[in-house]
């Protein structure tokens, strides 16, 4: 039973007079516990695909089912609800909010879900522990190292128990050692059953995934399962 199914998804942008076809008839399906790396040169449509999977955008045509629900033509508020409950985002530049502490950043998605403060604190602390951040939760992002910031971001992406974790170059801003730690953390999460979709241009990073999708010119060029991860 796939948790996400994409059927002939297209996305066309208008940039002035020019129409840019960022995505052309992409079809995919994502099963529970999958770990997909989307690769491709810049402009190949991988970010657009990630944004569509993350419900930040609506496709021009085609359908997208997430957890059995057609989310391809929902209203802005409904998409917000989907993001809030089913999607976890991890960004290259962490995207933490500067004026909030690590814990408050982790709790932020719950705030928009209307979860009480007490419960938010409990869950926030739990996920901070999970990503190995326990004692630094009272610090502001500027007081944390890049690796720690990304851990905060991962904890934040997990706190709403999402169906899919979406990671956009999660190690792009980190040194290789810290990057490895973050990737290990993602592996660990995947091992616990979390589906992950990661965009990267680094083959080493992509090699962690079980499945690699190569994109070119808004199309899926190759869709391969990594032999090392099979079984």
């Amino acid at each position, binding site marked *: 039973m796939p948790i996400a199914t994409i059927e002939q998804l297209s996305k066309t942008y208008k940039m002035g007079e020019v129409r840019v076809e960022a995505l052309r008839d992409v079809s995919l399906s994502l099963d529970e516990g999958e770990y997909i790396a989307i690769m491709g040169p810049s402009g190949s449509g991988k970010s657009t695909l990630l*944004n569509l999977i*993350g419900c*930040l*955008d609506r496709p021009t045509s085609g359908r997208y089912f997430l957890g059995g629900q057609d989310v391809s033509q929902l209203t*802005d*508020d409904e998409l*917000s*609800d989907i*993001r*809030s*409950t089913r999607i976890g*985002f991890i*960004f290259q530049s962490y*995207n*933490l*909010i*500067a*004026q*909030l502490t690590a814990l408050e950043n982790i709790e*932020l*998605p719950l*705030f*928009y*879900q*209307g979860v*009480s*403060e007490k419960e938010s604190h409990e869950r926030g602390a739990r996920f901070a522990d999970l990503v190995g951040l326990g004692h630094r939760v009272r610090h502001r992002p500027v007081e944390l190292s890049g690796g720690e910031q990304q851990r905060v971001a991962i904890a*934040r992406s997990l706190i*709403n128990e999402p169906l899919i974790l979406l990671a956009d170059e999660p190690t792009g801003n980190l040194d290789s050692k810290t990057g490895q730690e973050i990737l290990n953390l993602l592996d660990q999460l995947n091992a616990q059953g979390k589906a992950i979709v990661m965009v990267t241009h680094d083959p080493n990073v992509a090699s962690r995934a079980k499945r690699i999708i190569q994109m070119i010119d808004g199309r899926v060029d190759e869709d391969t399962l990594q032999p090392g991860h099979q079984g």
Partner: protein
Amino acid sequence: MFLFRLKRILRLGIKSLWLHKLRSVLTVLGIVFGVCSVISMLAIGEGASYEAQEQIKQLGSQNIIVKSVKPPQDESASSQQSFAIEYGLTYKDAERMAYTIPSIQVIVPMRAIRRDVRFGTTRVDGQVVGTVPWYPEIAKSRVQAGRFINAVEMQSAKNVCVLGAGIADKLFSYENPLGKAVKVGGDYYRVIGVMQEKSKANLGNGGNGGKITVENLNYEVFIPLTAAKSRFGELLIRRSSGTMEVERVQLHQIIVKVDELEQVTETAAILQTMLSLFHKKQDYELVVPLELLRQAERTKQIFNIVLGSIAAISLLVGGIGIMNIMLASVTERTREIGIRRALGAKKRDIITQFLTETVILSGSGGMIGIVIGVTIPFLITKFAHMATIVTLWALLLAFCISAAVGVIFGLYPAYRAANMDPIEALRHE
């Protein structure tokens, strides 16, 4: 539940604002100045008009005061002051008023003569006022000790008097004046009462052309009108810098009390017509406290409109300052908006967030402004001795306006923030 959420939203707003302390403080200052100038200006205006209105109210808003006025001397100037000048209100006038104008409830005729008042060896320059028993009620003055002249004393023109508070104090520093006899002119009068001291506020209106209304306040000696008529006659001799003036005046003032407040203006017009029929010269004057009061109110209204406009402008400037800062803040925090949207914030959550921040700015500005705005009038009263009145109404108005400014000028930046494309916003550097 809602309150908890509000508390969290407020806390988040304060946190965001605290990130740029100087900027937030400067923005707040705009509102602070606006609000405190509104409050202090209104307080000064209110204080000034209150004083004027109190003076007028003391005269009684249901009353019309008719005074005798010495007419401008024309050809009689050539013939010198060889004979008495006759002018002013007469007993006949009083009678006509009382009997022919139905809207008049009661009249208080008064006659005033300046005389020395003696007790033992003490001598005080006093104002002898001949009047009727119901004077205190109509003129809104009170008897402090003893009683006022009664009807019997009036009828029999008895030699009794009621002293003003000031004169009683001067004459009887160490004794109880009641029952004592004071000498006024050539006769002795038994003191039957002492009037309550009239407030100083009354004195201001003394220059209104009348001789006896208020200028000798607290130095009056009230005697029955009948006694004044028979003991002092109608001739008044006034000596001033070598010349002598002889005047013949029957009544110096008539206070007319009208039945209903609505009839005051009409009755004043009737009185005017009636008096003009019997007086060839303009030797009388009508003072209508109600009209004065209305005039004072109109002036105050204009004053308030002017102040209100100034206040509105200063708050507008403050509001534009807030909007400016919030627009800059929205641009600067584009990425934050993108993040929040990606994490599930709806458009209205973003609107709430930015609107809360502007309301915090303007609200705190409003509160600081109120504190300063209350302090300034206090200092003005203390050091410049000007009356100021800070009304609750002014405080509420200032605060509501400042909060409204926050909402109105915060709406557009918040709307801009909410309508950003989340993807674009996330890409923003």
